[in-house]
């Protein structure tokens, strides 16, 4: 196995014990002992032991590269769309791809699947930095479904061999990427919030939160191609680089009847979630501190005067005060609006990871020690039911 304590170097300080996310390290006779069965080789202890360098992870056991990796080049972005419209995360990925492509000196392509109506969207992909669009049109590809999409995209990958494949970490992107990674035998890093190219090895460094946002991990897939990652929406910036020599490459779908077993029957719209939370510029969120479901009315009113959308903490969703489509956080949505107003939300890490990317955060909470104040631009210690109506009135005044 891969992890080893170098006894001569270990002084039994216990730093590794404290950082182990799995609690599998203990100190016995002044030496660290790692219970290998529970260890997942995350490397937190190696980092903690920087000073003594007494813990070593050996990775040479890993399957050596069998593919000719040099045959793979270029960055591909999956063009996700809903109701015929490309989702913003696609443009964000194309924006980030510009930066990565500089270091790799490679091409950026988007992969667009849909019915024939989707072709017009190629313009938008070019306008956001795609140099090529691989376009596959078929009535069966109109809406996303796992099997036909997996079939078509993995087919394209086999044929054209991209080096990196980026997919939005949306419900659709996660459903697709996970299936693709197994089919084409590739590593897949979920829900990345940071991407970079290792200057020496020229491989993709994929950084993501783990343990509910408590730690960050950097992950690589050095021996497999493409290097695949799903990327959290609202983390990267779109770019407006129009590429002059844009090119559409049309491919035929190779869908099989066995790919069409799952049938879409109906879309159930959530009327209360009409506003797209992920794209909203202003969000006002309510937490358990609003005290009663009917108080969401004042949260909605504040959102309305600000021209924003309504968000919620999980505690309110769990209590049935509001539908789950409004939930912000680790198991809800990640948002990055210009303004986020947290009303009666304690600010547990699972909530913070979903909203701390907002430009300006206003937090209203009775408890001066609430963790939400650690990320707030403006903290107000007070009763939401008193403050929010005052805010509404004041904004109306200012607006005239």
């Amino acid at each position: 196995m891969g992890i080893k304590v170098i006894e001569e170097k270990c002084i039994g300080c216990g730093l590794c014990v404290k950082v182990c996310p799995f609690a599998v390290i203990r100190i016995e006779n002044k030496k660290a002992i790692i219970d290998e069965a529970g260890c997942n080789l995350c490397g937190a202890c190696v980092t903690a032991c920087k000073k003594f360098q007494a813990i070593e992870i050996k990775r040479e056991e890993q399957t050596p590269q069998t593919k000719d990796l040099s045959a793979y080049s270029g960055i591909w972005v999956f063009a996700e769309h809903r109701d015929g419209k490309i989702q913003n995360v696609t443009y964000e990925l194309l924006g980030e791809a510009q930066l990565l492509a500089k270091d790799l000196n490679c091409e950026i392509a988007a992969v667009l699947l849909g019915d024939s109506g989707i072709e017009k969207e190629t313009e938008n992909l070019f306008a956001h930095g795609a140099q090529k669009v691989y376009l596959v049109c078929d009535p069966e590809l109109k809406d996303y479904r796992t099997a036909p999409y997996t079939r078509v995209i993995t087919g394209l990958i086999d044929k054209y061999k991209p080096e990196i494949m980026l997919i939005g970490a949306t419900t659709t992107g996660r459903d697709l990427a996970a299936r693709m990674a197994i089919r084409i035998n590739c590593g897949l890093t979920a829900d990345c919030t940071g991407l970079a190219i290792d200057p020496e090895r020229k491989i993709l460094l994929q950084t993501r939160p783990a343990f509910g946002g408590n730690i960050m991990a950097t992950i690589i897939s050095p021996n497999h191609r493409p290097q695949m990652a799903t990327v959290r929406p609202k983390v990267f910036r779109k770019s407006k680089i129009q590429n002059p020599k844009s090119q559409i490459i049309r491919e035929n779908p190779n869908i099989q009847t066995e790919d069409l077993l799952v049938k879409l029957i109906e879309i159930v719209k959530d009327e209360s979630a009409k506003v797209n939370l992920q794209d909203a510029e202003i969000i006002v969120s309510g937490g358990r501190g609003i005290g009663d479901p009917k108080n969401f009315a004042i949260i909605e009113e504040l959102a309305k005067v600000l021209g924003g959308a309504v968000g919620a903490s999980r505690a309110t969703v769990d209590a049935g005060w509001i539908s789950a489509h409004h939930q912000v956080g680790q198991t809800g949505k990640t948002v990055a609006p210009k303004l986020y107003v947290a009303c009666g939300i304690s600010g547990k890490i699972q909530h913070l990871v979903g909203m701390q990317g907002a430009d300006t955060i206003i937090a209203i909470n009775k408890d001066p020690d609430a963790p939400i104040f650690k990320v707030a631009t403006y903290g107000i210690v007070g009763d939401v039911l008193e403050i929010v109506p005052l805010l509404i009135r004041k904004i109306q005044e200012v607006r005239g």
Partner: protein
Amino acid sequence: MDIIVCIKQVPDTTEVKINPETNTLVREGVPSIVNPFDENAIEAALALKEQHGGKVTVITMGPPQAKEALKQAVAMGADEVYLVSDRAFAGSDTWATSYTLAQAIKKIGKYDLILCGKQAIDGDTAQVGPGIAEWLNIPQATFAVKIEVADNKAKVERMLEEENEIVEIPLPAVITVVKQINEPRMPSLKGMMKAKKSEIPTLSLADINGDPEKAGLKGSPTQVVKIFSPPAKGGGEMLTGEPADIAAGVVAKIKERKII
């Protein structure tokens, strides 16, 4: 109807704390729990069994202490459980984990439905469920809030970002569930007695006819190269005084910032 539920034992991440001085993770004393979404998967399986009859088998891949998670499943009402455990599985990423679980499922045999949680709260990848489906070459429906089974098909309501979508999926299939699907039951007294007495069978790499090249660290395409604490965010300005003045102050500030 035979249902296999995949569950994972995870550290309770709500209990994980950051040491403010060293900015490192304090994991000491953090309890291990059954991944919350997997409890929903167990509940969904038990509810389907109550409607349609059959058997609920719960499996987990993990170290020997993951038996505790399986005992909880027995206490809730699972008929059979298996611990998939071998030194060779250590260091598995989602690729190797889904391979291993799929091998174990093939070994266990007949199934109409495989249920997973939407994601495990330690890694939050949501990749293992679809991975299993691919290894077994069966369809998948992820993020289910409602499952109805009839005529060897499932009608699944999937929770997406802004809306829900209802799909019809032939069985056998893999379905992953979100929290909103149900309220997991508490273990019954009888169940707890049964759990206490139950022997938990263990399946090794050899037992599941696993390929050592595909399992554990060796079979994992991804490698973790660095773990670090997220940069601490400094708090901003606290506004104090009379509520009316505070409100006026904040509104002035967001106006200054051209938000309104």
